[in-house]
């Protein structure tokens, strides 16, 4: 059955079906946009949290770490309730904007959390040395960002992987509407439920290939991650 599905999958991929490639494009677009938004916000707030001391910092960190592992379907539920309740006048439910919002919220704690962890680790190493060498406050901050840079890329990859592979949130707030909000994961869920294993395998393969290509590209710039 798997082999039969695999054959069907290859045929489907070679047929350059417009709907299929439209779905792939939409998936990449939304997940990328969400990751970039969450990345910009997450890196900034992550570093900010790591260098400042304030009351409730421990609690805030605990909360962020907790939300790093929130099941997408739970987050989807929250976004759904907000869009169908207080914000119902904006008519955002079952739109691409809703999917983008949910994925951004999903990825934000992942990026922020990992930045906090790595930034605090580098702080201990770097700042002591920098202080003894007489660096100013601004110098130290710039130094910190420079030292955290490799981990920024890594945390963004983590975030993107989470965004493109999750199904629960986009299904709930996007509605899996054909030609509008159907993405790779909801396509797989639908076709598996219909017994169209070939289509599901095809899309699953593409998802894996995309992940592999991303890592191949990154490896060109940062081979130290993969050596």
């Amino acid at each position, binding site marked *: *059955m798997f082999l039969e599905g695999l054959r069907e999958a290859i045929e489907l991929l070679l047929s350059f079906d417009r709907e299929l490639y439209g779905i792939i494009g939409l998936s990449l677009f939304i997940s990328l946009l969400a990751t970039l938004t969450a990345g910009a916000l997450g890196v900034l707030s992550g570093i900010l949290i790591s260098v400042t001391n304030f009351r409730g910092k421990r609690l805030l960190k605990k909360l962020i770490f907790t939300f790093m592992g929130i099941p997408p379907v739970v987050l989807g539920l929250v976004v759904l309730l907000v869009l*169908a309740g207080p914000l119902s006048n904006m008519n955002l*439910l*079952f739109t691409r904007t809703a999917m983008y919002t949910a994925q951004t919220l999903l990825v934000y704690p992942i990026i922020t959390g990992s930045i906090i962890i790595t930034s605090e680790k580098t702080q201990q190493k770097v700042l002591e040395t920098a202080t003894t060498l007489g660096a100013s406050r601004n110098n130290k901050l710039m130094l910190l960002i420079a030292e955290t840079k490799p981990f920024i890329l890594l945390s963004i990859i983590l975030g993107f992987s989470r965004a493109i592979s999750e199904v629960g949130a986009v*299904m709930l707030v996007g*509605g*899996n*509407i*054909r*030609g*509008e909000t*159907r993405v790779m994961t*909801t396509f797989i869920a*639908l076709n598996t*439920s*219909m*017994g169209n294993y070939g289509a599901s395998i095809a899309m699953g393969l593409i998802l894996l290939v995309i992940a592999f290509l991303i890592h191949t590209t990154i490896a060109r710039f940062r081979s130290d991650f993969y050596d």
Partner: protein
Amino acid sequence: MKKLVIACMLIAMALTLSACQRKELLLVTTTSVENSGLLEYLLPYFEEEHGVKVRVTAVGTGAALNYGRLGQADVLIVHDEKRELEFMEAGYGEKRAVCMYNDFIFVGPDSLNGQNLENALETLTEQHYFYSRGDNSGTHLRELDLWETHNIDINRFGSRYKETGQSMESTLMMTSFKGYYTLSDRATFLAMNDNLDLTIAYEEPDSLRNDYGLIKVDPSLHNRDDSAADLFYEWMLSKEAKQLILAFTVNDEPLFTPNE
């Protein structure tokens, strides 16, 4: 440590034994039968009487028939006459009977005020947003069949026709959130009615009748003991089951009518 291992082994043995004692049956049904609460109400009577444990998986009709083909089900309850007959003709099923029925209804924010079905369909196409299941389920195929038999091109909807590709429950929730229209089986709609902001927009029980087929999968497709499947098949068509089905109501409304 030793005690713990022994305790685990005893528990495992007890579980295996209790599983062996009772016959099992793999029932794959369309979601409306399971999620309406009918099986939860009906099955204990059968299980009690015959000492059989019924394991239920609820999926769409297309997927249910597929599980049957793969020998991953003993008995099916589905609702798509055409594909059921194809299934039987291809030799996947040992026997089939219509065990009960209800009807499909159009639901939406308001009544369609249709004098007849054709009229209602016209109004829908001309004026309203419509969520189609779009998942090859029995309900989806019936909906497509309705447009076709009434010579309505769904392209006339333009972008007001949308496919959700999701279950009846999810599609009903989406329809309710958006104030659109959709086609639903009566059982699922009534079972969920309290959570929906929808009303019956058009009904015509005779021409929109929804038959549920009971199919016993050909035992040569799997290696399980299928005596429980025979018991269940006969029981579902018995007088006792019919009376129970008739007595099953949600908010005082019967959801299924046993077939005579």
